[in-house]
């Protein structure tokens, strides 16, 4: 109806935008100013600082052996975590949507726990169970596996919450048709359900990856921060800031920023692709 009104009265629709201040140019100005002061200006300072010593210094900082090792480990472990979330997130979403077991609503609420729990508490928590004082005798503290554990903890909701709504909306007709034509449960899932979920799964994986690449609080204690082994990029940057090497820190931070931005951009493409799939 609103579309029809706008078509009949194009002049009024335009003036409405101008009159209602929050939605108009004033609102845009306020929003842009706030975003610029809080977010864009500080990030610009990082980019500028990374180039303080020229391109040569930038390259020197980024290609240092320790920086490269940290970046490589961060990206590899984040890819592993994103893949694990794609699989487990889909599985958990499936169970939550299609398997009406008792206590499902509680489990559904618990999924968001990592969003609510401070990251440093997540780190302490995992260290209590999988650290030196582990009550079950599993001590993986200060290993690469412990970093993966911490990242799996903090990124868990992304995979589940990306897939769950799509699965809820999915039309069951096709699945019933496939089943009535003799397709097995696995075949129906693989050929009917999965193709519909792919954009959502990818978007969940991308969000997990972006979060994992920059994660700090949950890994800072459990990783033990061993250079060339368990040191992740965010902790490396933190150490550089602490030792007053702001330029070096900024250079590596810019690489980290570029990786997250690339993922964010990829996510937009996935989302567009997903919505095209809908039509």
């Amino acid at each position, binding site marked *: 109806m*609103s579309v029809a009104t706008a078509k009949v009265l194009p002049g009024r629709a*335009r003036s409405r*935008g101008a009159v*209602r*201040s*929050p*939605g108009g140019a004033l*609102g*845009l100005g306020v*929003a*842009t100013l706030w975003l610029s002061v*809080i*977010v*864009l200006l*500080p*990030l610009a*300072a*990082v980019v500028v600082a990374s180039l303080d010593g020229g391109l040569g210094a930038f390259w020197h900082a980024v290609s240092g052996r320790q920086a490269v090792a940290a970046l490589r480990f961060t990206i590899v472990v984040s890819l592993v975590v994103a893949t694990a979330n794609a699989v*487990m997130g889909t599985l*958990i979403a499936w*169970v939550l949507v299609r*398997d009406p077991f008792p206590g499902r609503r509680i*489990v559904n*609420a*618990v*999924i968001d*726990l990592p969003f*609510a*729990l*401070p*990251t*440093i*508490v997540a780190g*302490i*928590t*995992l260290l*209590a*169970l*999988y650290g030196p004082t582990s009550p079950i005798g599993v001590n993986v503290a200060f290993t690469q596996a412990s970093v993966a*554990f911490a990242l799996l*903890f903090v990124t868990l909701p992304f995979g589940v919450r990306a897939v769950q709504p799509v699965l809820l909306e999915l039309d*069951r007709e096709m699945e019933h048709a496939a*089943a009535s034509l003799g397709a097995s*449960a696995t075949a*129906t*899932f693989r050929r009917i*359900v999965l193709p519909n979920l792919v954009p959502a799964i990818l978007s969940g994986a991308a969000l997990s990856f*972006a979060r994992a*690449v*920059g994660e*700090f609080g949950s890994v800072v204690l459990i990783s033990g921060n061993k250079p060339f082994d368990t040191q992740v990029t*965010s902790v490396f940057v*933190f150490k550089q*800031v602490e030792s007053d090497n*702001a330029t070096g820190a*900024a250079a590596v931070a810019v690489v*980290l*920023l570029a990786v*997250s931005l690339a993922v*964010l951009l990829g996510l937009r493409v996935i989302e567009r692709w997903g919505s095209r799939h809908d039509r």
Partner: protein
Amino acid sequence: MTARPSGRLALRLVALGYLALILLVPVAVVLVRTFEPGLGEVRASITTPAAIHAFWLTIELAAIAVPLNTAFGIVTALVLVRGEVRGKRVLEALIDLPFAVSPVVVGLALVLLYGRVGWFGPWLAEHGIQIVFSVPGMVLATIFVTLPFVVREVAPVLREVGDDQEQAAATLGASAWQTFRRITLPAIRWGVAYGVVLSTARAIGEFGAVSVVSGKISGETVTLPLLVEQRFTNFDLAGAYAASALLALIALATLLAMTVLHRRGDAA
């Protein structure tokens, strides 16, 4: 789909087992460890002057950042959904940026802007204003990391409710402010509330960004999450667990609020 009962059960067990392994058992272990030395010990370690100061500082950061971002979030959501101005595409693309930036980079950025050698450093020093390694810097860090939550929650709700009622109100002679207060705001209230809960949780729990700009001056710039780390690295494990348990309690309250608000929002 009619999966075999055995297959369904297996999937359920895998899902629940994974959740237990990654989420629930660790949290349970920390709670058990916390209360092992007895309730009195726990109370003593979260009522030390340092702990009490950390608690109130944490609340202060959230109390400044969340209202500012709520106001900004509502305005931005209105611009993105209802606005008919050029440039909103760019705004839309940039709004999620804080989610993609590592907390450490946020802290570093603030140091580079307001720190001793930062862009505004000399000017600030001349006027005797300290931002980095004091509370204002921590406030800025908290605002940065919580910026997108309200926008992200309110924009979809605005899109869904449509603007029929707003147009009707405008036609009947309501002013822009009246329309917003009497029509738009009630329609988006659950979305706003959900965004506020998410921002508050993040503001209270933020560690990385605040850690870089705090300077960790005991009794001055230490928040609860920073206190957890400080106690842990000082081998005060029981103290770290007690502060963690306090934060976990806040997280559980948040979770409860999220669940309730979600149900209300769906019902409305």
